[in-house]
């Protein structure tokens, strides 16, 4: 992967956001990271973007477990909004538990390309990215 990705991180956990941002930077995957601490904030941020904006993220890293609006709730709202974008962000979900129910829901959701396990692994991210770009 040569190009640098624009990445949107949606996670209520501040330390995890920090870890993700750092690892993306240190592994030269992205130096263009936007952080949102809730699904609501992320929806608001995405709403402010023009359809053809340069700032539309290439990748959205979405935490499964968040208070109020969890990752899956966010996706429901996101479905209604994302259609206007010219380029379609790749969505990966993040979880610290290997919950069967979550795995199944991710598989059934065609918007989500992969469920990444925390702690964030750049190698796993890159493998998932290659797969997502192939399809």
């Amino acid at each position, binding site marked *: 992967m040569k190009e640098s990705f624009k990445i949107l991180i949606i996670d209520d*956990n501040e330390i995890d956001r920090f870890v993700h941002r750092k*690892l993306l930077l*240190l592994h030269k995957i992205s130096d263009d990271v936007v952080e949102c601490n809730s699904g609501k904030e992320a929806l608001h941020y995405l709403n402010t973007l023009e359809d053809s904006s340069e700032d539309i993220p290439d990748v959205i890293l979405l935490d499964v477990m968040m208070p109020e609006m969890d990752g899956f709730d966010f996706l429901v709202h996101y479905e209604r909004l994302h259609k206007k974008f010219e380029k379609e962000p790749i969505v990966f979900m993040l979880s610290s*538990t290997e919950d069967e129910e979550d795995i199944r829901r991710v598989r059934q959701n065609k918007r989500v390309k992969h469920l990444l396990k925390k*702690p*964030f692994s750049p190698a796993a991210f890159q493998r998932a990215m290659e797969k997502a770009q192939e399809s």
Partner: protein
Amino acid sequence: MTSTLSKKNIRVLYLDDEENNLRSFKAAFRREYDVYIANTSEAAFNIIKSVSPQVIFSDQRMPVTTGVEFFNAVRQVFPDPVRILITGYTDVNDIIDAINKGHIYRYITKPWSEHEVRVAIDNAFDLYETRRKLEQKVEELEKSNHELNRFIYSASHDLRAPLASSLGVIRVAKMEVKDKLSKEYFNKIETSVKKLDIFVQNIINYYKNSKKGDEHVEIVFADLLEDVLESLKSHLGSEDAQIDLEIEQQNKFMGDEFRIRVILSNLISNAVKFKKEDQDKARVAISIKSDLEKCFISVKDQGMGILEEHIHKVFHMFFKSSSDHSGSGIGLYIVKEALGKLKGNIEVKSKPGSGTEFDITIPNHL
């Protein structure tokens, strides 16, 4: 006498269309029990509604409905009271049928004796009480089970999330910190946190395995294995293990994904972990073959092996064959438990110094 007093709490309803029978019944038992009488099934229903008797007697032969019909109707709405039929010898077939279908608990033939009815009431009341206590226990158990499930679900997340955060921070620190001593410290912290992490996940898996019902979904072994290896890689840091795969899946396989995943990931992580001291890379050969009936999984390593005197103990809880390794002694125990639930089988062959092989079969629920 206390026994007589305590019997006063037993509420008995008697339904019969003949007033004489009702009167003599009440006269005979009113001192020992709370006796209610009714001469129509409507009146009987009203009494059941208002006083909820534990024991109900009914005559079989009545003008509008028979006793069996009445009990069948009662049972739909009030399943708890114990039902006893009073009858002559002539209605045998109806009675056998009613007993077999569970409409009534027992019958008493006419003319009844006081002693017989008394024994019947006491037995019926015992049954009623036993059932009630059982129901109560089941309810309590369901409640605590439900609470435990919720607790484990949130505990598993709340335990795992900060561990994952710590491991993430350590990962960042190890890249950014240049000082050699600090790096060494971070390595030590990481080793400990990973140990705790594996233990937490094992405990969650152990619990889930013991609680979860069988759920059969289609399993594509290539995908499942890829998933398992992916998650082991980020976890064990087993990037440098050499893993040979051989998958031959000819048919659709239906099985419990959670348990098969737990089995695979425990066996593979052991195979990677217990390499020989002088091996720089663990070598693991995984083979999965499945047909219409079952799948055969073999996980073979060239690691340190298991001493012969230990081999029958490896599936015991908290058994560790070596003290200097990072096992928690619960992994293989969970494998064995999970296979028990799946009605599968496991065999282990091992030679110290040359490696271990686990062979597993799991039935296909096609």
